[in-house]
């Protein structure tokens, strides 16, 4: 992408900025759309209508809310640590936004073609923890503090099963580059990693059950990393009011919200890349068959967004179905269930990939 733009414009800085603008636009538009989708999904699951007045089925509702948030007075509690308090939402948002740098939306549209994309995503998404801790500590509110402590413990713990599954995928594909992983799963859904990847023979069939388990584990643990129900205990509105962002209001609160929805799509994108073929079409490309090569990247973009949104929908679906866990049970799920399963999964996949 950068290379393409650099060739086109011939200016390094401008090209770099343009590259950055694309994911920013996507994250903002997605957050707006995601919040609307969340509202509509929850409403219809609960036999309600949801927002209906602003635009067709209320699709402008989030825009209206954003307008309201921008106009709100920015209240900072007297006893808050002002510096940290102001940095925290920016840091959280940066963490979730920076992850988009390496996500390949299609074979042409990707911010940076770094070789260690997967590693980068895992690292940068941990930045969120620092932001959350800052938010919780600086607000000088007991609910915020409890929420932040819970969040830190939770996110750090759930990094482990995520990393273990990512490790097994890296072992199988032999690369850390998200683009390369996507390219490997080309041409048919049968080549997706969830179906054992683009290999043939016995090992492919042996891999399928373990791949499904792996996909479930990484889905669960990323769910916890983005603080969604049933793992939304850092926010836990019935216990901690709003957890670490209890004291925030206006656009700073909005940034936490944007970061949350940005994160939701980011982790869905990672799962889509690792297991569901990334931007690859499951049925082949229309552009190839009619001979219009320029159409292919657009189709890829469509498939990528579609896969990501499907996973986001499942996240929402779960949110409106399940109660939330308690903090110790959350740790139990992680350390006693997900990590052993992920570890066994890693070993078995390793053995299978040897034969």
């Amino acid at each position, binding site marked *: 992408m950068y290379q393409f733009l650099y060739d086109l414009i011939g200016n390094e800085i401008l090209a770099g900025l343009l590259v950055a603008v694309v994911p920013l636009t996507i994250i903002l538009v997605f957050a707006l759309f995601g919040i609307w989708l969340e509202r509509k999904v929850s409403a219809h699951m609960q*036999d309600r209508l949801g927002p209906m007045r602003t635009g067709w089925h209320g699709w402008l509702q989030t825009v209206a809310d954003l307008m309201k948030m921008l106009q709100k007075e920015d209240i900072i509690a007297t006893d808050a640590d002002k510096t940290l308090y102001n940095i925290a939402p920016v840091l959280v948002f940066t963490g979730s936004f920076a992850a988009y740098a390496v996500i390949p939306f299609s074979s042409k549209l990707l911010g940076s073609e770094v070789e260690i994309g997967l590693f980068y995503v895992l690292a940068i998404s941990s930045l969120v923890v620092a932001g959350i801790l800052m938010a919780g500590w600086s607000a000088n509110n007991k609910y915020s503090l409890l929420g932040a402590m819970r969040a830190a413990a939770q996110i750090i713990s759930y990094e482990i099963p995520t990393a273990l599954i990512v490790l097994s995928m890296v072992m199988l594909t032999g690369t850390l580059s998200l683009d390369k992983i996507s390219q490997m799963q080309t041409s048919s859904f049968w080549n997706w990693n969830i179906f054992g990847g683009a290999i043939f023979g016995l090992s492919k069939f042996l891999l399928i059950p373990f791949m499904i388990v792996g996909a479930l584990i990484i889905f669960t643990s990323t769910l916890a990393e983005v603080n969604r129900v*049933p793992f*939304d205990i850092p926010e836990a509105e*019935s216990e901690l*009011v709003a957890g670490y962002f209890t004291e925030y209001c206006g656009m700073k609160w909005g940034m936490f919200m944007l970061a949350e929805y940005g994160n939701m799509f980011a982790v869905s994108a990672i799962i889509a890349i690792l297991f569901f073929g990334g931007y690859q079409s499951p049925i082949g490309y229309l552009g190839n068959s009619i001979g219009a090569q320029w159409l292919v990247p657009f189709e890829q973009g469509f498939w990528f967004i579609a896969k990501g949104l499907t996973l986001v929908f499942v996240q929402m679906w779960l949110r*409106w179905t*399940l*109660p*939330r866990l*308690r903090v110790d049970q959350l740790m139990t799920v992680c350390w006693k269930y997900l990590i052993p399963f992920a570890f066994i999964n890693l070993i078995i996949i390793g053995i299978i990939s040897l034969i």
Partner: protein
Amino acid sequence: MALKTETMVLNMGPQHPSTHGVLRLELDIEGELILGVKPHIGYLHRCFEKHAEAMTYPQVIPYTDRLDYLAAMGNNFGYVTTVEKLLGIQIPERVEYIRVIMAELQRIASHLVAIATNGADIGALTPFLYLFRDREYILSLFEMTCGARMLYNYMWIGGLSHDIHPDFVRKTKEFIIHFRPTIVELNNLLTFNKIFIERTANIGILPVDTAINFGASGPVLRGSGLPFDVRKEDPYSIYNRFDFEIPTGKGLVGTVGDCWDRYYVRVLEMEQSLRIIEQAIDKIPEGDVHSAIPKRIKPPKGTVYSRVENPRGELGYFIISDGNLNPFRVKVRAPSFVNLELMGELCKGHLVADVIAILGSLDIVLGEIDR
């Protein structure tokens, strides 16, 4: 080297999403561990008992509506049976049947809120909406009958304010048919959900002797395994004519007397209430619901304590009459008031999140705690 630690006081409420009103809980916590819970009440104190002393007997009825505002029919029922006992008057059969049907519908409506909010406290918001949808149906039945959805002033001393609507019997039968699948759905979605069980089983265990000593009643006591129900124990109105069971906590997924048992007792009780309604709805005799209402209500001197089984437990009215038009003293034994006392006992050694689950399972209504 030991780190210096100190306990933190967390003020939960009076404004908090899940204290079910304006209840303030003072939690002494160490990390997330609860060392002690002190409830502070009185934020909703409306001087009911003082008001009642200045009202005539029928004028107190609208005030009783506002005690347990989720079960106003039950409050009316308790008050009017107490005053009727004091007056010693006979009530027409038709009135008795209609009262029982209304009280049982109200019990279902109230348990729906209890279950829904208990679920919502634990994080399941969808069952909340499903159950409120069905509660609306019951409220519409009440609205059709007496014109109000929540604060009915429906049962009067010696009778009822309105006869039932001509459509009432048909619509109630429709409701029963429509409602049974909702219970199944609720069980699938929430009751037997693994996460819900994990959150409520073995939490806030209340042994039966503690429960009795603390005066707990209603689903809280029955959840501890004692089949105690005023409807059977001390039958008032015409409850002895109906065939129903008293569900008790059995420790199906945890220990007897835990939050899940209290929750599940409510689920089972809705089914029993449906049974009572089914038995009563076809037998409503003909008659005039106004015939026994005394023109002038002036009870003789005396004291009376009478109790009914409200959805939240044993609701008692202690009335002293000095032979005037207004009561000399009305004391309400509010079930939530007594049940809330258990908070400090139940919460010890649990986590902050469990406080919410325990409070939800006690199912308090601040309207009758603060009176």
